[in-house]
């Protein structure tokens, strides 16, 4: 698989510019790469590294507002950056195909999957409609889609995310192209789904000997998929090497720092004293959305103690965020109760006193939607202080400045900014500051790091840990990311289908034997070992046999 006699794709000194604020800015700064037939190249980097732009550029495509400024892309002897539209268009589907990050958004909602699948094989005259449909069903089968005979006749919204991603891979394969660009195909998926998609993609690429560029920000994923890895940063190559070399002996500091990200671990805390009253307790909480037949939360009981972190982990739809919403009073439980400092907490937030509202604060996943884009930092942080604590004037300003220093942002620089003038990590810090401004007892952190690059996320985790110690805060830490749980949790709650599957101290949860679901969850987390995917799949086959 690694021989590269005559490269299929040769990219030389590729430069791409993007229009930003009415100025052309270089976003890809002279990248070279070659890709042999049947080879899989992993492109890895943080957001803004230019991975997708390079991937699309390799197809001779730039998004609106971008342009090729220099360099060349040779695909099988054809230079694409200067080729006319017609030439480039005719290569697509038949010789180069693309698999997008979000299959749900990238399938046209108006047509059935199979019609989208067969569109270009038929139009380009590769095969007849009937053959194309038969071939699609074969591909669906090969990609282990359930009901391969029928699934193509559904509309995209009727099919789950993991299945759509496989259907999209099948669609990319429709004309048996020479090259497929995979643009973060599993990023939006849950880990247990991801593992299925990864194995499906790998198998089919191997089967047809297709060359591929696999774009991701996840090292462990790329380790499973790629023959070679190229690390990108700020639109330029940091280094590239074959997968084993790259994993074991990275040369550049930046690469090393990426590899080292997962080193943070919060220091252990003393166990909870006997008889210590939890700050907040959920007792047998069952919640249901109005008009739905089944409860979304079923008999959930969790205690939150001051100074300790409860990590609530689970996949999408497990009810972890719903638990937070119940706690916030946004979804009042239909049975069970909530307790704050030993006293009953009103189920609905409108019925809660100011002090009760103050005690429980929330940090949201998407800092972009959590901060009012039209308010300045001063107002965003200052309002809870004024509202709950009655701070005004000079005292208020002082307090805001102190808090900004606490979250490691220079007050003079940031106090009058708008959220749009901040980076992702800075926004999340402001989100944290807004929660802290209320002087809460319990802070709910809802996937606060999942939208952030790893290095930035780690900074946030460190900050949260520091603040917890300083303010003796109780954290409810909602996440789907097991490594984050390992880093920060004191207690772990594993949820599935609105129920708690397993809960207890971190050490206890991570030490076998696990509950079956916990086991699945833990074993599905990719590891940096290139052999991990084969091993896990083999183990699972063995278990089910």
């Amino acid at each position: 698989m690694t021989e590269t006699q005559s490269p299929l794709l040769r990219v030389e000194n590729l430069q791409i510019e993007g229009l930003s604020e009415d100025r052309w800015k270089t976003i890809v700064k002279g990248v070279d790469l070659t890709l042999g037939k049947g080879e899989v190249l992993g492109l890895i980097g943080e957001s803004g590294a230019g991975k997708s732009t390079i991937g699309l550029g390799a197809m001779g495509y730039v998004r609106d507002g971008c342009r090729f400024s220099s360099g060349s892309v040779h695909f099988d002897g054809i230079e694409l950056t200067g080729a006319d539209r017609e030439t480039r268009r005719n290569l697509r589907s038949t010789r180069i195909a693309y698999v997008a990050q979000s299959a749900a958004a990238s399938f046209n909602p108006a047509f059935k999957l199979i019609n989208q699948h067969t569109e270009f094989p038929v139009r380009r005259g590769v095969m007849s409609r009937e053959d194309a449909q038969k071939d699609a069903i074969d591909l669906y089968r090969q990609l282990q889609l359930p009901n391969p005979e029928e699934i193509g006749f559904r509309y995209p919204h009727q099919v789950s995310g993991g299945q759509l991603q496989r259907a999209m891979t099948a669609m990319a394969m429709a004309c048996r192209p020479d090259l497929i660009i995979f643009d973060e195909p599993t990023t939006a998926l849950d880990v247990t789904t991801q593992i299925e998609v990864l194995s499906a993609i790998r198998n089919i690429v191997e089967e047809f000997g297709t060359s591929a560029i696999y774009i991701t920000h996840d090292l462990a994923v790329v380790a499973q998929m790629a023959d070679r890895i190229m690390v990108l940063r700020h639109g330029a190559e940091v280094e590239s090497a074959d997968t084993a070399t790259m994993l074991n002996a990275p040369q550049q500091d930046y690469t090393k720092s990426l590899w080292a990200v997962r080193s943070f671990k919060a220091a252990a805390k003393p166990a909870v004293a006997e008889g210590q009253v939890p700050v907040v307790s959920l007792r047998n909480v069952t919640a249901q959305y109005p008009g739905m037949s089944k409860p979304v939360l079923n008999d959930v009981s969790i205690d939150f103690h001051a100074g300790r972190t409860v990590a609530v982990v689970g996949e999408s739809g497990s009810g972890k965020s719903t638990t937070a919403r119940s706690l916030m009073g946004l979804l009042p439980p239909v049975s069970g109760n909530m307790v704050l400092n030993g006293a009953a907490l009103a189920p609905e937030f409108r019925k809660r006193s100011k002090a009760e509202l103050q005690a429980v604060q929330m940090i949201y996943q998407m800092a972009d939607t959590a901060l009012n884009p039209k308010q300045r930092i001063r107002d965003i942080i200052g309002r809870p202080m004024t509202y709950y604590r009655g701070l005004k004037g000079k005292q208020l300003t002082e307090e805001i400045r102190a808090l900004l220093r606490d979250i490691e942002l220079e007050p003079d620089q940031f106090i009058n900014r708008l959220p749009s003038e901040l980076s992702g990590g800075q926004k999340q810090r402001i989100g944290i500051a807004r929660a802290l401004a209320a002087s809460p007892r319990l802070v709910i952190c809802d996937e606060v790091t999942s939208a952030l690059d790893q290095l930035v996320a780690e900074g946030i985790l460190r900050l949260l840990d520091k603040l917890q110690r300083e303010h003796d805060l109780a954290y409810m830490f909602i996440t789907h990311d097991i490594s984050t749980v390992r880093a920060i949790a004191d207690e772990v709650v594993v949820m599935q289908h609105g129920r708690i599957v397993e809960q207890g101290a971190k050490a206890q949860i991570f030490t076998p034997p696990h509950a079956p679901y916990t086991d699945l969850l833990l074993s599905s987390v990719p590891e940096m070992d290139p052999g991990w995917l084969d091993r896990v799949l083999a183990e699972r086959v063995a278990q089910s046999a």
Partner: protein
Amino acid sequence: MNGFLHELGKAPLTAKFGVVVVLLYILVALFAPLLAPFGESEVVGWEYQPWTTENWLGTDSLGRDMATRMIYGARNTIGIALLTTIIAFVVGSTAGFFAAVLQGWVDQLLSRAVDVVISIPTLIFALLLLTIFGASVTSLIGVIALIYATFVYRIARAVAMGIVVMDYVEAAQVRGEGLWWIMRKEILPNAAPPLVAEFGLRFCFVFLTISGLSFLGLGIQPPAADWGSMVRENASLITFGDLTPLIPAAAIGLLTVAVNFIVDWMLHKASGLKT
């Protein structure tokens, strides 16, 4: 203001043209008495005199100076349309935000009431109300504002619905903030850009509606000069190929085109599309 000028510098030519035209109209409207060579309804000569240095645009059917009538027309027509649109927006957006934040029965009640008003033909409803309240400028403004507030309500509600689901609104709600605060501080600033664009469009519609009502004799009353009536008064001349009625109509058209250019530009900016 500097920011605006900066933005304007980068705007397409159509938007610059729009801004210049609108500013010009506003200046003319504000300084009408200073700019106009004659009194608003002063008879200065014979009817339909040709263009001269004294009567720049000639005279109208009664021998009043056309240029003067145009200038005062700007004041009456734009002033009334602007006031009407502002009232419609204040009332409509307040109600729309109200419905979006509170939802439930408040939303249902307001939305159904708006359904009722919208399903009655605009012109007939205006006719009924203007007959009830009399065809004065005050009732004209009130009635048209009420009718247009229903359209604004729908847009404001839709925009606010998109904002209400944002986490920062939820954060403010669970903080315990009151309704007024949420509407004013969380929703209004974020709803403003689409509403401002809408304001431009609605201003044009109000403007045309008032012209239409003037045409039917229900709008601005003589001798006040307004462009709709001026077209109407001289309309039959078109049959004979006379250009006089074209002037006020062109003034109406030019303003609406200009406003639309600005709106297009703002919508384009708001959409974030590069092409």
